[in-house]
């Protein structure tokens, strides 16, 4: 039973890393939003499983918040935003999917090599979760720096938050109030970012953030 519980937790966490790679690979706008919904779904499943094996009922609330807010509300809102921006059918010019993937593999290897030695005293479950969570966070950062479209950068940002939740639930005893406030701050961030997207588009007729660099006088 114990081994099986560990295996299932491992499978969800590994699945989250895999979905992060799918986010990096995807180049269609609506595809990215759908995969982000899958990302949040895997996080909420993982958190619910942690609640079950740690006998911590308040984590079920965390899982529900993740499911409702990040797997349903935010993807629906993002779908509306990209439809209103008129970019829901565009294919984003991603430079070097292969190179990005290789960099991602390197980041996963790095986070495993960093996390496993320094958490030698922690339980196996926490160690695995921390290693995977660090990979998800680094992959989200990689997504933010490798994309030019503002919407995919927003999604990279939100996938970082999913990685943080994975790390926080692996370590026992995160207060519920922290999780609720994080969830609301993410929602508010979405609203602010949404407003900014429309402002950027009004100003430049595009959401390609390289135009911002030119506006600042930098050479892209």
């Amino acid at each position, binding site marked *: 039973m114990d*081994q*099986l519980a*560990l*295996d*299932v937790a*491992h*499978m969800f966490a*590994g*699945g989250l*890393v*895999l979905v992060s*790679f799918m986010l990096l*690979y995807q180049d269609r706008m609506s595809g990215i939003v759908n995969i982000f919904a899958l990302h949040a779904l895997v996080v909420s499943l993982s958190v619910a499983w942690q609640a079950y094996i740690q006998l911590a009922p308040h984590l079920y609330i965390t899982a529900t918040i993740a499911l409702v807010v990040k797997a349903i509300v935010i993807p629906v809102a993002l779908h509306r935003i990209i439809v209103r921006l008129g970019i829901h059918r565009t294919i984003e010019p991603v430079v070097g*999917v*292969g190179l990005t*993937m*290789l960099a*991602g*593999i390197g980041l*996963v*290897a790095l986070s*495993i090599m960093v996390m*496993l030695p320094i958490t030698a005293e922690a339980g*196996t479950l926490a*160690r*695995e979760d921390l*290693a*995977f969570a660090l990979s998800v966070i680094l992959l989200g950062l990689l997504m933010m720096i490798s994309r030019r479209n503002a919407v995919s950068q927003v999604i990279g940002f939100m996938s970082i938050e999913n990685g943080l939740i994975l790390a926080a639930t692996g370590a026992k005893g995160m207060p519920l109030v922290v999780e609720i406030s994080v969830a609301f701050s993410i929602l508010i961030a979405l609203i602010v970012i949404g407003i900014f997207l429309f402002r950027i588009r009004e100003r430049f007729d595009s959401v390609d953030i390289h135009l911002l660099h030119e506006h600042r006088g930098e050479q892209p």
Partner: protein
Amino acid sequence: MAVALDAVVQLGQLLLVLALAPLLTGYVRRVKARLLRRQGPPLIQPYRDLYRLLRKEVVLAHTASWVFRVAPYLIFATTWVAAALVPTFASGLVFSYAADMIAIVALLGSARFMLALAALDVGTSFGGIGSSREMMIASLAEPAMLMVVFTLSLLAGSTQLSSIAAFMQGPGIGLRVSLALALVGLIMVAIAENARIPVDNPTTHLELTMVHEAMILEYSGRHLALIEAASHLKLLLYLSVVACVFVPLGIAASGQGPTAYLAALAVYVAKLAAGGFLLAVFETAIAKMRVFRVSDFLGAALMLGFLATLLLFVSRVA
């Protein structure tokens, strides 16, 4: 006595893969035709094609050297040996010490090398296009295949297919995300290696898209028959590897009686039928991708293999 029975079964396996391979290809073609609401050729059509080709005379180009004439025999021989080494319905046979996954990858790699060489030999432009594309695919598919092999052998502690199959049947497996990644990676490699639809179309003769067909364009007669038989064998081989490693149910171990072997044979044929059906459904549902997208597709397979190995190290600590 036991050794003699093992030898007989090994010989039977050698002949079985040769006899079943065209049937599998015919079955996949038939299912695909039925999914498109066509009647489809009869199941034994590949046998008829091979028989007809064997009786036809060989037409050789003036520029063809001995490489062109020798290559089909070598390709057929290496592919046949590789296919016969995979434990199909019985494991732990006489040659199972040689049924090493890395050896099988190497055998297939040499067959591919000879095919590319023969395609370049005549000096037509199609042969050149075909070999260059085949090498592009191979340079990504082989590392991906090797990463999958490494994942499996790190788990099972052996590169021998018999031991891997025995380990997968045992209780120490559990639920592992690495295995799922390795399975998906292996299937993607198998699709690319067998020139199936998202990568190459096995039925096309359109110049701009073909890869495998472009290389064998100059072949005729018994040479063509051997190459066709080798490609049938390769499809059977990959399906058998997937079945043996990931669905190892019902493989008879060495020393069980003839009845166990017969039951295992029936299970094996059922597994092949299921695998061929899934392949046909997948091929019907998906569109062929551009040649230059293939590197992304296989890069994803390579990435899955890497990830499977990496995740294995995390769970090893557990």
